[in-house]
């Protein structure tokens, strides 16, 4: 018979101790079991900042998806500035799994002075299960001054854009008139959205 018993919850203090154990398997087990402790979200975020093992990082991020909150999303979004590419990509993937938690922070990310951070924010939006995602991407196309950020938004709109965004793409095409890459990307996105 399948057990209906609840998995016993391990003591939080012991789990936090294990989170800095020498053996990665002990840290993975602790990171996984922290998902039962909502108050462990910030300590898990702290550990993620110094954790070097990819497998432990992966489990920490899965736990943070479970414990998601706007505060967790802000901590993860800080990794968008990281030079550690695997960690940055893992953070983007985790943030895509927490639409309600990251949504309040996305406007800040989309207004960041660093264009790379804005591109990563667009990458999050492209796969975010959030009703506002197409409109936020359209706003990027309307207002972002950086061509690479706009190009990333065009890519994302090709997948999730609606007919209402066509006018913004047409305007963007005019803004980058003569730029072969942008014309190609915008035309392809418009064709996809129009269902041609």
């Amino acid at each position, binding site marked *: 018979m399948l057990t209906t018993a609840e*998995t016993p919850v391990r003591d939080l203090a012991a789990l936090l101790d294990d989170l800095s154990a020498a053996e990665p398997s002990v840290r993975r087990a602790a990171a996984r079991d922290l998902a039962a402790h909502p108050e462990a979200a910030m300590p898990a975020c702290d550990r993620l900042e110094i954790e070097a093992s990819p497998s432990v990082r992966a489990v920490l991020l899965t736990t943070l998806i479970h414990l998601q909150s706007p505060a967790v999303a802000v901590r993860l979004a800080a990794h968008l500035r990281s030079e550690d590419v695997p960690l940055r990509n893992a953070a983007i993937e985790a943030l895509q799994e927490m639409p309600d938690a990251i949504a309040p922070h996305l406007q800040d990310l989309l207004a960041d002075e660093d264009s790379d951070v804005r591109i990563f924010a667009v990458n999050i939006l492209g796969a975010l299960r959030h009703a506002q995602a197409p409109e936020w991407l359209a706003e990027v196309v309307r207002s972002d001054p950086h061509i690479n950020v706009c190009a990333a938004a065009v890519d994302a709109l090709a997948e999730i854009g609606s007919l209402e965004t066509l006018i913004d793409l047409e305007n963007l095409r005019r803004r980058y008139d003569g730029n072969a890459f942008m014309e190609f990307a915008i035309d392809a996105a418009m064709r996809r959205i129009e269902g041609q």
Partner: protein
Amino acid sequence: MAASTAARLKDQSPAMTDEEYAKFCEFFYRKSGIQFQAGKKYFVERRIADRIEKTGAESFRDYFTMVRFQTTGEELQLLVNAMTVNETYFFREDYQFDALVDAILPEIARTKRPKEPIRIWSIPCSSGEEPYSIAISILERWSQADTWDIEISASDIDSKILHAARTGMFSERSLSRVSAPLRSKYFIPRPDGNFQICDELRESIDFSLVNVIDSLQTHRFRNIDVIFCRNLLIYFDDVGRRETVEMFFDALGPGGFVCLGHSESMSRMSSIFLPRKFGETIVYQKPLSVE
């Protein structure tokens, strides 16, 4: 009667343009790992039409919007369930069994100490075709089979299907890819036209009831060398997939392998495994040394 049914079903079609179909397929592949070719449009349309009717959506466009942006992902999950077909038979996707005996087991054997068991775990094992196919492939095709202690575990969440696996009774259809020599060697014909797998094989596999997301139940699986987990993760949401492959990571010994279904890719679930290509199949390896 048949004509009116056909007309009703035709009316349920969601009327997707080819571009919408392509867009849907790309989205569905990204989310589920399941790929549909152009020839599957009718199959896909029928199932979408059914989901449109059940959800009360006005059109394909409305329904697609809901699937993409529903925060809970519930409708996407229901759509995945509708798009998958539970079907199994002996030597399904047999190129993975070829890879097992031609490359994976020899590689594992090179790093094993003598008398150390080689452990294989089939999950979900359904009615047993997969673990029995693994056992037969090893017995028939791996020259070192008699040299090693090989433990095959097989697990499923469904107790009824597990009972069927232990009983080992199979239909002619299930054995369609089993050659006559193998049938006579490993199966006993029954009066009702079915075939029962021989006792020796039935007793060689350790069947157990396991829910893959219950860590209490999976904890006893450690130092596994090869996990066959085919066409299960397509039923899970993204977080469920992450948790399951992370559980596999702990269940595997160093250098252990995970074999997924042909339409599933680890790259969309986790980056902690190394992809390895053996013949026509890609499998995923836990690093020999885990930092």
